[in-house]
């Protein structure tokens, strides 16, 4: 009976309308203009049919809807097109809200952006209690505002404090939290969706009202206070010149009723202006690159059992993460006392991530201390994370390799030793690969998959699939010193330390880096990572034209290792660096230019040498591996946006001033 492409409308014997969202030709529901126009037609159709109520649900297994169609969104040629898309969504969701009979949305899986905004336009919301349910308004993450009524309806429904928290962080909430916040009316397993909707529509209760303590955040006077508090919170995380969207969200709610149609086109927070802001394009590009990296993890082979050798910080945390993601993990070290801290950290991680005791228990059960290394014979993948010494590593491989299943892969987490050096002596060198995690493992999304000249295609594919399987982003890189991320990060860190030794206060250096858009300055970062590690990596990647920073070595000799020892470049108290108030130069650009150009130059070299497949993946790797100024879209994107000629001129200037370490790479001509 349905004349619609993306929706199915059925009216049952009780005169209830069931509207099923089933976008044609894809496994995920998203809102395109076409989808929205159909929904508008359906709203009119429904109004004429006048059913007792409408139930809106998704036919897709993965979720309700993933929000606006990002492909359509990114092909807009003008700011006006972006605005028109915003306007369309608003009008259609307004039509749904205005239907004269009760409406209820049934939400399972993800409900992102528009996927939460459509349910907000319904009178009731029912959510699946399953662990995959996630409701979110994540627009802020790509530099825009919740534009289809989210910023209007959510504060009204659950109070501004809670709504701003969700809109400004973009974080997703599960069904239980959504119920607690008042975002949904009913939480039930998906198998009861039909009954729950019928019961709700049979005796429609009054729509949800926020509790008093939440309602007052919408009151006059208090609103201003809430906005000011929110701005203060946001300012701690993001600068407005880099990230206008969170500031725009607060203003949109405070001054424009949460409706972007009320914002004049010329206003700095209008949809048109936000869409044109360079940050927006850069963040959307990163979002798509993230998808591209996930796509690199397609693999048929199943890794079910991982054996990790070395229960230090890296090995222990890798093992804990793999078990968290459902794999069976054996963790080997010389004795139980060495494994114990890793188990303790794993327990803390699981408590934080899994919360429910039975899930924590299951993850702990999957993580098996294995002093004898019994897991070697059963596992599908060995990850070696022992001391960075090629000889010791080769010795270990020699004892492991004969016991491996023929299908098993041998991986090293080395951050610096070339694979070819480790592959000598192996019977099957084609099965050796680098799987290089970053510290802290639980936080860092990126994993470099290091391909030695001897590594087979199949092993690369399986390794990439494994990384995707544990919800990390795989980045294939060629085996060359420092691979991609450390190689680009090292000259930046080194230059910052040279500046420090020349007399620039660390506070100024860190401020300059943050002005560029780094989430943390290089001096604070060195302290956070640990100066001993900094020295080791610096030595490994040293080049004759790079002067070695001396201060860091002196600090390490004095056992001042940074955050973990309580003092490094900074003194650390309660996990915070004690920064002095120093006079800041009016213009920080020369400082950040000098620090970041060595990194940009190295990125150019990496692209030229084919360390990664292309410049896009170079940017993605550096952003996800180091946090490199996301709003600039990575070093190569920064080069293009800022102007290649301008940067090249700066680089040459620095070369004459400071010497060969600033010599432009041969790749600048081609980039």
């Amino acid at each position, binding site marked *: 009976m349905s004349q619609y492409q993306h929706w199915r409308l059925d009216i049952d014997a009780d005169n209830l309308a069931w509207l099923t969202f089933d976008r044609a030709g894809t496994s995920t529901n998203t809102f395109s203009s076409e989808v929205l126009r159909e929904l508008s037609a359906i709203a009119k159709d429904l109004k004429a049919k006048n059913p007792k109520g409408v139930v809106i649900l998704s036919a897709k297994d993965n979720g309700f809807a993933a929000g606006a169609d990002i492909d359509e969104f990114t092909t807009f040629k003008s700011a006006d097109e972006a605005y028109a898309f915003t306007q369309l969504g608003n009008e259609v969701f307004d039509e749904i809200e205005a239907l004269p009979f009760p409406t209820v949305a049934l939400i399972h899986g993800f409900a992102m952006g528009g996927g939460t905004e459509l349910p907000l336009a319904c009178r009731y919301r029912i959510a699946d209690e399953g662990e995959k349910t996630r409701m979110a308004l994540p627009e802020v993450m790509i530099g825009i505002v919740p534009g289809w009524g989210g910023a209007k309806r959510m504060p009204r429904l659950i109070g501004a404090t809670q709504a701003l928290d969700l809109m400004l962080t973009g974080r997703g909430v599960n069904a239980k939290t959504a119920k607690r916040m008042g975002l949904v009316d009913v939480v039930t397993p998906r198998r009861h969706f039909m009954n729950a909707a019928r019961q709700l529509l049979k005796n429609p209760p009054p729509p949800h009202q926020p509790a008093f303590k939440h309602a007052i955040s919408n009151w006059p006077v208090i609103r201003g206070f809430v906005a000011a508090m929110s701005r203060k919170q946001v300012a701690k995380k993001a600068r407005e010149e880099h990230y206008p969207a969170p500031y725009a969200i607060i203003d949109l709610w405070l001054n424009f009723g949460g409706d972007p149609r009320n914002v004049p086109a010329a206003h700095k927070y209008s949809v048109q202006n936000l869409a044109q802001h360079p940050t927006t394009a850069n963040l959307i590009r990163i979002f798509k690159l993230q998808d591209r990296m996930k796509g690199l993890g397609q693999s048929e082979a199943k890794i079910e059992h991982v054996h990790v050798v070395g229960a230090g910080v890296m090995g222990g945390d890798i093992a804990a993460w793999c078990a968290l993601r459902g794999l*069976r993990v*054996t963790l080997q070290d010389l004795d*139980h*006392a060495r*494994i*114990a*801290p890793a*188990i*303790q950290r794993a*327990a803390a991680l699981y408590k934080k991530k899994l919360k429910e005791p039975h899930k924590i*228990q*299951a993850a*702990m*059960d*999957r993580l*098996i*201390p*294995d*002093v*004898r290394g*019994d*897991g070697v*014979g*059963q596992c599908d993948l060995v990850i070696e994370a022992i001391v960075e010494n090629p000889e010791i590593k080769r010795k270990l491989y020699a004892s492991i390799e004969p016991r491996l299943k023929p299908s098993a892969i041998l991986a090293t987490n080395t951050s610096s030793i070339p694979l070819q050096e480790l592959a000598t002596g192996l019977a099957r060198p084609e099965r050796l690969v680098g799987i290089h995690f970053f510290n802290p493992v639980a936080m860092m999304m990126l994993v470099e998959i290091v391909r030695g000249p001897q590594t087979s295609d199949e092993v690369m594919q399986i390794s990439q699939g494994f990384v995707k399987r544990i919800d990390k982003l795989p980045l294939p890189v060629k085996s060359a010193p420092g691979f991609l991320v450390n190689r680009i990060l090292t000259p930046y860190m080194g230059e910052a330390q040279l500046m420090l030794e020349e007399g620039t206060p660390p506070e100024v250096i860190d401020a300059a880096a943050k002005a560029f858009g780094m989430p943390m300055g290089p001096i604070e970062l060195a302290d956070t990572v640990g100066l001993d590690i900094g020295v080791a990596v610096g030595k490994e990647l040293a080049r004759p034209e790079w002067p070695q920073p001396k201060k860091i070595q002196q600090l390490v000799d004095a056992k001042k290792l940074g955050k973990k020892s309580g003092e490094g470049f900074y003194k650390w108290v309660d996990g915070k660096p004690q920064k002095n108030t120093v006079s800041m130069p009016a213009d920080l650009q020369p400082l950040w230019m000098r620090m970041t150009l060595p990194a940009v130059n190295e990125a150019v070299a990496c692209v030229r040498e084919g360390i990664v497949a292309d410049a896009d993946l170079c940017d993605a790797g550096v952003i996800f591996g180091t946090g490199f100024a996301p709003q600039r879209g990575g070093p190569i994107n920064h080069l293009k946006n800022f102007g290649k000629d301008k940067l090249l001129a700066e680089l040459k200037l620095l070369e004459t001033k400071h010497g060969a370490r600033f010599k432009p790479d041969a790749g600048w001509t081609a980039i």
Partner: protein
Amino acid sequence: MSGMKQKVYVIDGARTPFLKAKGKPGPFSGGDLAVACSRPLVARQKFAPTAFDEVIVGAAMPSADEANIGRVVALRVGCGDKVPAWTVMRNCASGMQALDSACANILAGRSHLVLAGGTDAMSHAPLLFGPAMVNWLADWYAAKSFGQRAATAAKFRLAYLAPVIAILKGLTDPIVKLSMGQTAEIVAKRFGIDRQMMDAFAAESHQRALAGRAAGHFTEIEPIIDAKGNVYKDDDGVRTDSTPERLAKLKPVFDRTYGNVTAGNSSQVTDGAAMLVLASEEAVDKLGVKPLGAIIDSQWSALDPAEMGLGPVHAITPMLLRHGMGLNDLDTLEINEAFAGQALGCLAAWESEAYCKEKLGLDGALGKMDRSKFNVDGGAIAIGHPIGASGARVVLHALKTLERTGGKRAAASLCIGGGQGGAMLLERA
């Protein structure tokens, strides 16, 4: 009872350190313990945990939230949805019953690979409400009106709250109304075993356990790490300061004032688990593994509940005779030391012509067991007696001893509350 028609192989086995109950629930539940020793055991096999045909766990006092603990363990160890699992209970021999049930299914051809053993976290034994409290609660829940509730409330007595300690109930024979310690007093009395002998035996148990640890005889122990990062490496009830003189100072706890059985010469209340991988000959051939050993026979016997401690005598004797063996044809013998008086009583019974004639139907005494081959690395007095686990522990340790010494035959046995004995005849692979 007749014997097993064929042998069943023991491919491998592991146990947790036995952790003495310290007055409050210990760090691990019964399920945690069985999982802790099964995980490394399973990880070192040549087959995946999903290859088991079944999992059988003996547990005498599983906690309320681990119903059918066998299935809990199977799933947690990673055997997957499709491996059936069950739980057996035969008091102190629950772990041995699990092994015997595995043998039965393997010999019947129903199973080829079985994970079996036992576990108990005795420190987790619950405190129960007495019947008076339960009845009062039932009335309270039934009361509907305010008046009914007020009337019920008025009937409440503080004494109702006095808990019933489940573990003491479990360790008291419901038929003869004797605590297990009292049955040991009876056995000791019968054979003239005095306090001094008991304490000397107990001290030696600790010394043997310490010597065994120092010599590396406990290779079956898999250390456990808890969520706080603490490592549990060894049996923590073994004492370096247990001398007959110190033991002599303890007061009797079962027959108070005049008795001889003290906490020091009894087995300890302990948390622990022991698990074994049992296999048919066909499975051993198919896997191409060298098993640790084999169970060649088993025997269950029963006797007067008031003398339950002599159960091993009644189980081991017919089993040995079936195979034409005498006591000292065994290269090692493990008898669970529920009580020093009881373990000594077993040895004395075999030496007693009267007992062997009257109770075992023999022509004379069976013989004198060489003490150097008996509980060589100490027993439950030093190591502890997590009821469900001990049966699997003695079998595993006897096999490990054969492996270490190159001996050929061993027996392992326990006395069972309620008046039974269980035994297994073992051989080295």
